[in-house]
């Protein structure tokens, strides 16, 4: 396993499959249906190339480029102000047994 090994964040083939999926007719249709624009897929291909370069030659430029790209993706997914406050612990009553026949306490 690669956890914390200093290797790429994903298996290199995953970048390639994302690239191909991004460019597929179906995905382009879905993207247009959702966003009204064409998807941009080039970054996946660049990431694939960086990933392979990182694996083969431990190239610092490739590592830097790939990490920058992935951090960008993470940031994009966090780019909104949440409507609610996140919990520190799950709800206390999630696992409590059901009380059939008795009205739940409020």
């Amino acid at each position, binding site marked *: *396993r*690669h*956890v*914390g*090994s*200093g*290797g*790429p*964040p*994903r*298996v290199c083939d*995953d970048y390639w*499959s*994302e690239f191909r*999926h991004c460019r597929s007719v*179906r*995905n382009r*249709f*879905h*993207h*247009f*249906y*959702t*966003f*009204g624009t064409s998807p941009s897929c080039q970054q996946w291909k660049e990431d694939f190339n960086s990933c392979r370069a990182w694996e083969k030659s431990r190239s610092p430029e490739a590592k830097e480029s790939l*990490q920058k790209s*992935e*951090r960008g993706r*993470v940031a994009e*997914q966090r*780019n*909104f*102000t*949440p*409507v*609610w*406050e*996140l*919990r520190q*612990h*799950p*709800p206390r*009553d*999630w*696992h*409590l*047994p*059901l009380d*059939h026949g008795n*009205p*739940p*306490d*409020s």
Partner: protein
Amino acid sequence: MDQSKQREDDYGYGLFPQRNATKYKKGSIAESLLTFNHKCQVMLQFAMETSPYAKLLLGAMKSSGCAVFKERHFSCEDCDGTVSGGFDATTSQIVLCQNNIHQQSHMNRVVTHELIHAFDHCRAHVDWFNNFRHLACSEIRAANLSGDCSFSNELSRFNFGLKQHHQECVRSRALRSILAVRKVSREEAEKVVDEVFDSCFSDHAPFGRIPHSKKDAKFAHRDFENRDRYYANL
């Protein structure tokens, strides 16, 4: 919950008449033969085992400390009207309307939709009963991420639209869901949906993307399974 009997708003509980009293004793032969209960259970099991949407949500809930147990957290019941399912925050249960879900694909979608509510309940302080913004947000997310608004589903509802139609669909389905469970005017509901739309449409947790198709959901599930390695190597 005694107070709710005095309020006008029943919080949608009227749609699920079996929440407090079942017509046939649970587990009885009458229940199996005279209701769609068994079919619902079978379809639910299949959804949990094979739908990448459901598997991802179940995995995400487990890692958030809300492991889902079929017997405890799901309930197949007869419901009113055309409602397909609901999430009951007071009992931490997902209700599936056995009399209104007849196809596996529909079951998959309902399970996904309700698991998104359950996931939100698990990871955030969602005030389902008093905060409209919270309710609207979870409904926007559920419509956005469950495949409710896929092109083919919309087509089957005779809603034709292409460019960015997905967003219109999400808006209108969120609105519908809110109006079904709360006594509030359409204008007020629209206003709340507008207020929170941009934020909640952008919140793709736990998928990391909007899963337009099963393939998207599979990729998202793959990413979820590999998340430890991913975050360790950023």
